[in-house]
């Protein structure tokens, strides 16, 4: 379905350096299909790290691609499409988390988040502590960590996606790592 490696289950950061579209891809539909084939899996995985479950993550990514369809007429530079999708996914994840906060009193209908003990029991790994610690970070710090350590984006690209300055990205990442180290009682 997509061009990503489906077995990339262990510490494979997202293919941030992949070309947006191969030479000769004709906008608009070719571009969207190519972007989907190349980046959908990575975007879903990124969203999973932010919202915690695959169903919500896929909803976010589908909405992002629908938004890209709607914006194609205004998109002059095809190279801007991927940053647009990343920003859409980030915004979509924020909306999901906001909606969950509002609906906190209702019983959850989504799958258990990847950082839950139930998920840990399912996947039999010990990464839950790290993932759970990231959920306790402020939203922006968490986004910076996911974009930097999962997608492998440069600070400049993170700054574009989050619409902040590079300095803010550096300082946010530094504070997030320090907070995680404190939380996990690790030597900084």
């Amino acid at each position, binding site marked *: *379905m997509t061009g990503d490696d489906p*077995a*990339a289950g262990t510490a494979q950061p997202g293919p941030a350096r992949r070309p947006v579209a191969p030479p000769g891809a004709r906008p608009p539909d070719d571009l969207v299909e190519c972007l989907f084939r190349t980046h959908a899996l990575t975007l879903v995985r990124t969203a*999973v790290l932010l919202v915690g479950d695959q169903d919500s993550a*896929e909803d976010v990514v589908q909405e992002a691609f629908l938004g890209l369809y709607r914006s194609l007429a205004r998109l002059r530079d095809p190279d801007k499409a991927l940053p647009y999708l990343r920003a859409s996914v980030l915004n979509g994840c924020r909306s999901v988390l906001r909606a969950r906060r509002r609906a906190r009193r209702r019983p959850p209908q989504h*799958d*258990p988040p990847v950082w839950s003990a139930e998920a840990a029991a399912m996947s*039999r*790994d010990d990464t839950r502590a790290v993932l759970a610690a990231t959920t306790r970070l402020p939203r922006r710090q968490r986004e910076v960590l996911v974009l930097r350590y999962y997608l492998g984006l440069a600070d400049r690209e993170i700054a574009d996606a989050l619409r902040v300055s590079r300095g803010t990205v550096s300082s946010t990442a530094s504070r997030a790592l320090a907070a995680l180290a404190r939380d996990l009682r690790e030597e900084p």
Partner: protein
Amino acid sequence: MNRMEDRLRDAFGAAAGTVRADTIRGLPGRPPSPPGRRWLVPLAAAAAVAVVIAAVFVITPLVLSGHRGAATYRPRSATSAGVTRSPQPSARVTVGRCVHVTATGDFDGDGTPDVVTLVDVLPAGQTCRQDLSDHLRIRVTFGSGGGFDRPFTYCTGGACDSVFTATDLAGDGRSELAVEVGPGAVIDFVEFFRVSRHGISPLRIAAAGAAKAGLKPGPAVFGGSQDSGVQSPVACHIRPDGSRVLVSIQAESLSSRITGPWRVKRTELQLRGDSLHVVGVSTATVRGFPVRSLRFRNGCP
């Protein structure tokens, strides 16, 4: 800090790796409204509003008054204007069959989608209700033609419609049916069925290894208590190597606090034919186990 960064990369990679390429949805269809003509939508809406206003304030008075030229509006009763009132909706609708829940999957494995419907058959004159009666039937329509309609006697306590879904436990492209069979909100079981052209029958738990896992050989019934001290979710899980396992969890709080610690007993089963075989049992103690109402997590669509 480097170690922290490595741990982050490992954790993100492991969590992201649970999402597999073959389980995510395809590219959404292009939205019907062309991006360059979005201004047409509000324009069409405004035109529609204008037509309605014209119809109400200009055309209708002309028609009702019977004048050809004068536009004086004289309100008249609905009867005298020749308008027939629509009948009031009936408070009760008489039906005999109520469709409660439907699942779609490839149950016969022929590559065409099949539909399984849980139908509640009520005596004539009774209305469909939210809860289920004791007269349930299962209706199967195969995509390639044919099907059957039989009594379904596995539901207890008015359950059966909160989990009623197709799942592919073996990964062979042939769906199995997972049904929450009750009996209640606190103690609740999920049963797995094979749907074929010959009918519907429960999958079986094989005897080997079942005792060690605390399972009873026989019909594939999983679950149990779902309260603040015991949690018994069941899930289908795709391993990184692509194989699929049904994971049955019995989590018990070791303290009086809901935060635990919890002892989690995890049993893995693999479907071979129509039998589920225990392939692994492990026990771990974890801090914090979400007390939730999710009986079955269908990770094997």
